[in-house]
């Protein structure tokens, strides 16, 4: 087990390196380079070959790109993530990201819990009552859930609950002056969490259903029934425990999708988190900030994959051997 974890840890570190290198080279080898946005930022009078050169020297962009990658990596490890160029000019990137991290985590953790509860519930009920009305409804729901664009679902929610019924706020984390009011915060959380959860509930419920149906055909379940266990005990004690093993892996794989969803959801609901910050950094060509955010994303994604794999190895001993 220890060897397995160490091996996976090593692979994860490698993956973070690959992603960070990928992002670094995408940004630095692009036509125009990282300063392509500069001419929009400074006035035309100031923009000249000389000023571009000065900026390049100032930012260390005059050195070869592979060298710069190692400088950058060294700085990142030391905690110097550079300063934001445009979104919050001059502010250290690391501090800026850290100030937004709690908001994003609140959103993601709430969405994950909600998706898990609903996904399991719908999946289990539709597997036990296969081909019933509930099962059919769940099937239709999951098709709708994976076919509806997240951002449009968000917009429709705003139209319905903020514009038409006026019962939920269209954006932000809390009303002005009500930051410490839990009820007000929850009100702001409802729509973003619903939007972020939809696709996961749709996907996970199908997965749980398929997995449970598969397990229910196994011989050991017939044995459990044959020895006289009640229906509910067979399901909870024998079927579910085995059916939920693959769901752990699935959750690890869904985390990257959650990050994508956060960009869209936070942008629509003006939620001051990492996703919206990333979008802003792209729109205003704030490359140090974009790079820092992608680094955090990469670390969190890889970490969650690692946790899912280790969790899987703990509950399913067969994995450790291969």
């Amino acid at each position, binding site marked *: 087990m220890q060897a397995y974890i160490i091996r996976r840890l090593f692979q994860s570190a490698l993956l973070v390196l690959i992603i960070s290198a990928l992002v670094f080279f*995408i940004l630095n080898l*692009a036509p125009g380079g990282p300063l392509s946005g500069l001419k929009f930022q400074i006035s035309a009078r100031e923009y000249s070959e000389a000023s571009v050169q000065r900026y390049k020297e100032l930012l260390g962009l005059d050195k070869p790109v592979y060298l710069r990658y190692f400088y950058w990596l060294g700085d990142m490890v030391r905690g110097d993530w550079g300063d934001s160029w445009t979104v919050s000019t001059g502010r250290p990137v690391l501090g800026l990201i850290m100030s937004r991290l709690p908001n994003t985590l609140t959103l993601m953790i709430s969405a994950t819990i909600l998706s898990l509860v609903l996904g399991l519930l719908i999946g289990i009920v539709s597997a036990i009552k296969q081909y019933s009305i509930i099962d059919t409804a769940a099937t239709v729901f999951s098709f709708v859930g994976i076919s509806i*664009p997240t*951002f449009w679902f968000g*917009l429709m929610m705003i139209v319905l609950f903020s*514009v038409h019924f006026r019962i939920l706020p269209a954006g932000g984390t809390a009303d002005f002056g009500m930051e410490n009011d839990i009820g007000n915060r929850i009100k702001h959380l409802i729509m973003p969490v619903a939007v972020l959860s939809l696709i996961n509930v749709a996907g996970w419920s199908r997965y749980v259903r398929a997995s449970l149906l598969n397990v229910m055909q196994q011989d050991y379940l017939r044995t459990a029934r044959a020895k006289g266990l009640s229906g509910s005990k067979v399901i909870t004690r024998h079927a579910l425990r085995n059916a939920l093993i693959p769901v752990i892996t699935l959750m690890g794989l869904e985390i990257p*999708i959650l990050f994508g969803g956060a960009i869209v959801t936070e942008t629509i609901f003006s939620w001051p988190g990492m996703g919206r910050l990333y979008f802003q950094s*792209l729109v205003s060509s704030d490359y140090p900030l974009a790079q820092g955010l992608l680094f955090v994303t990469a670390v969190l994604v890889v970490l969650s994959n690692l946790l899912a794999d280790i969790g899987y190895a703990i509950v399913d001993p067969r994995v450790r051997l291969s």
Partner: protein
Amino acid sequence: MSATSATALQAEFGPTTERRSQKQMIWRRFRRHKAAMVGSVILLTMIAIAVFAPLIAPHSPTRISFPFCRDCGPSADHWLGTDSLSRDIFSRLVYAGRVSLSVAFLATTFGTVVGVLVGSFAGYFGGRVEMVLMRITDVMLALPSLPLLLILSKVLGPGFNTIVLVLTLFGWMGVARLVHGSFLSLKGEQFTEAAVALGASSRRIIFIHLLPNSLAPIIVAATLSLGGYIIVEATLSFLGLGIQPPASSWGNMLTGAQAKIFQNPLLTFYPGIAIFLVVLSANFVGDGLRDALDPRGKE
């Protein structure tokens, strides 16, 4: 017993069954999937509208129409009204479908081709080629794709070609895995061994023997990925990093609509329902194809 007498016996004593070709059997199974049939009709209609857009759209999608009329409601001239630049919304929707469907079909084609190539090389050649290719596939699958799609699009300069390129770049892995798995199991089959024994070239074995036998899951995966591409294209365009105005796409029409969400909430409805209908139809068709192409499925 010779083959002819067996047929004769069958004709005389056996249960009378109609002779059906493979294609007829697939069509019969597909037809029974009602949602897939409805989906096909909707999808074909949308494709027809996209192809014949100039004949269907009453106005230009990009030109400001006169008499000047900003954010006007539906009228006889403008069926769905006009947007904030006095452009006909219905015409913009029709042309947007053209753009969105073209992007999705191109990305599906390229993504499937790349996936097939990577998967078949890895599956057929094995060894180090397999290890490298499948490791790359796994890493790509573990990447958070939307953030990277956005930054690539930004850096390369957003537009039609860029979006097809980045969608392809992040869309081939599913097919690659599928083909890889399928090739691994087919490599052990006797017809492959026979082909090898007869001295067939690698290219012949891959394209004549292995690939046609992997076709069914590839078709299903490609159909199901179509909807995904449409959603991602719409998302990129909505965020301003996809199809650029004045050209309309369902995604970028929603960007304009969001700004007017309190004044004219209906604007957010039309493009979204178009995306939703097409994607839902594509997913139903994919589901129907999966049932129809599965030889273990019910007769």
